[in-house]
């Protein structure tokens, strides 16, 4: 049976091309893979190969013809012994492109986001914990979270620079090597790209790695594996291959370590579908959310804060205490203005709220806890009550978390806002070293107080 040779698409963007040259003429025998013609695409001159063996029966498009559309029949290939006459063009298969178009029409609504999961109108905080607590530092709360999960699940292991024998560069992994041994608490070379990739591979195989970055600044070398490998594979695999991994370490400005070691990555990772991003503040946050992150079947970016490591909180000691990912916490109730903050800035916002209270302004302070998925419900419910919103973060303003919250509030609570959202953020410069400049670059209690007054139109 004769076969139509069609004008091939030879690049992702090609719709038509020039048939520049025939290398075979009518009557020539060809083998599969043999070059029969040359065409010029939008990118280059390419060779057209015969896809089957046979004899060139008829050339339908002459050499030198411009603007030949993809899938136009350019020649007819006959089986040996077959004649041109016996091959009526109508018997040839129709260009296949037509059938693809018919296959499944694009739904014009396909860009619409999926319906939001059903949720109660009133925000449910997690059940109030009534079990035993203990005063401990954030550092100890994080350590206990890992230790409890490692006791619970033998597939959980910790790896990173100085996590084992040195006991953690910031002593967060203190005692883990002694309890769990060097098979499960693993010192790595200082090669973030490599060990992040190795961790992701282990997670593909079903293990549950907790990968510590000494700081998130160094994780930029591992960004490719966090984004390209960890976050995207589940989708690219049509749901087959999950990646139960936690990347954790101190994020944001520390103190006097200058530009390369002082940066908030909440907005960076918050941008990526396929990741969950957590930025805890208190000891309770750290313990309950790190345990949740380790149990979560998805890749989780866990942004700690070095300055918080030494601060003490009352922390639940029940090993079953776990906080929900994606839920914010109202740390202080108020009626006049809502302040959102995450990580260390929650404490600064609470100080500002105390100062404002003395001046007769009652601020509601929301600890975001999770950056992605963001608990927009808790924020909007608060804004519906206070009608004013100030967002606080240490990161830069451009495309930052405050920018995102302001946009969401405009979309969902526009009529509830009595004033434009005011953002408090880190100065839009690389972090300076000098003590006075560093202080100027970071949000202070005074900045938050001033922002609240601005959003309240108060003097």
């Amino acid at each position, binding site marked *: 049976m004769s076969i139509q040779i069609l004008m091939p698409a030879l690049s992702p963007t090609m719709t038509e091309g020039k048939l520049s040259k025939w290398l075979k003429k009518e009557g020539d025998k060809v083998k599969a893979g043999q070059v029969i013609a040359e065409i010029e695409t939008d990118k280059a001159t390419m060779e057209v190969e015969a896809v089957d063996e046979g004899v060139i029966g008829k050339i339908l498009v002459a050499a030198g013809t411009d603007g030949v559309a993809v899938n136009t029949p350019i020649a007819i290939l006959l089986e040996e012994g077959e004649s041109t006459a016996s091959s009526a063009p109508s018997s040839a298969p129709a260009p296949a492109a037509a059938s693809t178009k018919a296959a499944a029409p694009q739904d014009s609504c396909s860009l619409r986001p999926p319906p939001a999961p059903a949720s109660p109108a009133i925000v449910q905080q997690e059940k109030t914990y009534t079990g035993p607590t203990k005063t401990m530092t954030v550092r100890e709360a994080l350590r206990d979270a890992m230790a409890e999960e490692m006791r619970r699940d033998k597939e959980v292991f910790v790896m990173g620079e100085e996590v084992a024998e040195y006991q953690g560069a910031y002593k967060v992994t203190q005692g883990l090597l002694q309890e769990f041994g060097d098979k499960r608490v693993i010192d790595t070379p200082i090669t973030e*790209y490599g060990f992040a990739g190795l961790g992701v591979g282990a997670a593909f195989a079903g293990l549950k790695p907790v990968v510590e970055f000494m700081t998130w600044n160094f994780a930029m070398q591992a960004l490719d594996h966090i984004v390209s490998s960890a976050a995207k594979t589940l989708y690219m695999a049509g749901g087959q291959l999950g990646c139960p991994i936690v990347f954790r370490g101190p994020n944001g400005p520390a103190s006097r370590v200058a530009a390369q070691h002082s940066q908030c990555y909440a907005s960076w990772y918050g941008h990526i579908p396929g990741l969950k991003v957590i930025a805890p503040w208190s000891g309770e946050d750290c313990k309950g959310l790190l345990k949740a992150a380790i149990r979560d079947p998805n890749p989780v970016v866990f942004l700690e804060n070095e300055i918080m490591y030494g601060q003490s909180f009352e922390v639940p000691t029940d090993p079953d205490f776990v906080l929900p990912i994606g839920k914010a916490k109202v740390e202080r109730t108020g009626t006049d203005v809502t302040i959102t903050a995450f990580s260390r800035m929650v404490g600064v916002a609470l100080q500002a709220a105390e100062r404002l209270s003395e001046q007769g302004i009652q601020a509601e302070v929301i600890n975001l806890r999770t950056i992605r998925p963001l608990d927009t419900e808790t924020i909007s419910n608060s804004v519906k009550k206070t009608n004013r919103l100030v967002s606080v973060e240490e990161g830069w303003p451009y495309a930052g978390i405050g920018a995102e919250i302001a946009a969401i509030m405009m979309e969902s609570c526009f009529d509830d806002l009595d004033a434009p959202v005011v953002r408090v953020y880190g100065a839009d410069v690389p972090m300076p070293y000098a003590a006075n400049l560093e202080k100027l670059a970071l949000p202070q209690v005074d900045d938050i107080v001033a922002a609240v007054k601005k959003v309240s139109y108060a003097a």
Partner: protein
Amino acid sequence: MAAPKSSNIATPEQMMQFYKDMLLIRRFEEKAGQLYGMGLIGGFCHLYIGQEAVVTGIQSALQPQDTIITAYRDHGHMLACGMEANGVMAELTGRIGGYSKGKGGSMHMFSREKHFYGGHGIVGGQVPLGAGLAFAHKYRNDNGITTAYYGDGAANQGQVYEAYNMAALWQLPIIFIIENNGYSMGTSQKRHAAGDFCKRGEGFGIPGEKVDGMDVLAVRAAALKAVEYVRGGRGPMILEVNTYRYRGHSMSDPARYRSKEEVEEMREQHDPIENIRQVILGLGKYQEDDFKAVDKTVKDIINTAAEFAQQSPEPDPSELWTNVLL
């Protein structure tokens, strides 16, 4: 190393199976190129034609619990792992019947069942990921090993050496397989790589070997040795398998950086499929008719796959939102 006698490496039945496995890849890729030309496959499409002996020889030496990972020239690896031609071809056409429901495409397919972990589109990314798979074998003590495939271009990536270091340090059961087809996209080896790939593990104490990747029996022989070494708990090994791709880097590459004579010489003189055919014929057990029967079987599989890949519907629009998170 003296060439091993072919009869010590594989039985005639096994050789016939290698012929069939390689032919399946060849015909699959030819059909994929054809469907690309018809506009049924979009985007990037990297064909494995010419390199068939590499994955066929290596996979023949593995056990069921072993894991496999590679880059984006991956159709051959999937078929060699036993993944169905239908599912692979339907992924190329972006249909729901594809291994990733049409959401991954040519470069991103996976099969947990067949222990195939992708299918990765970032050059070199699969090498540390593969070290992680090997880490899991060791962690679980399941006697499995990992084969991580990458090209001569990827072999220059920094993360490859980070993976070498950790694999050697922790004695991970992994074979690093450099499929050296001589070109890093359009840049020839002599313009992109210093030294010998197989020696690049020496500083880490990783032994390496050069293998003729156009000879499936030579690949199998080297793989059998490497598998024994790695499964024995002695840490990783490197195989530099020298091969050749007949087509361009991807469908839109006219491959002007090498001469027609060079390609023609490889196709005519060193074709891995023709090579094994001659070896088998020389043994006298199989005749031309046996090959014809295999050719027919393979042709039927490929035609069925092409048909399936065109008949399977596109994913439902609701699939846009699924599989982002578990």
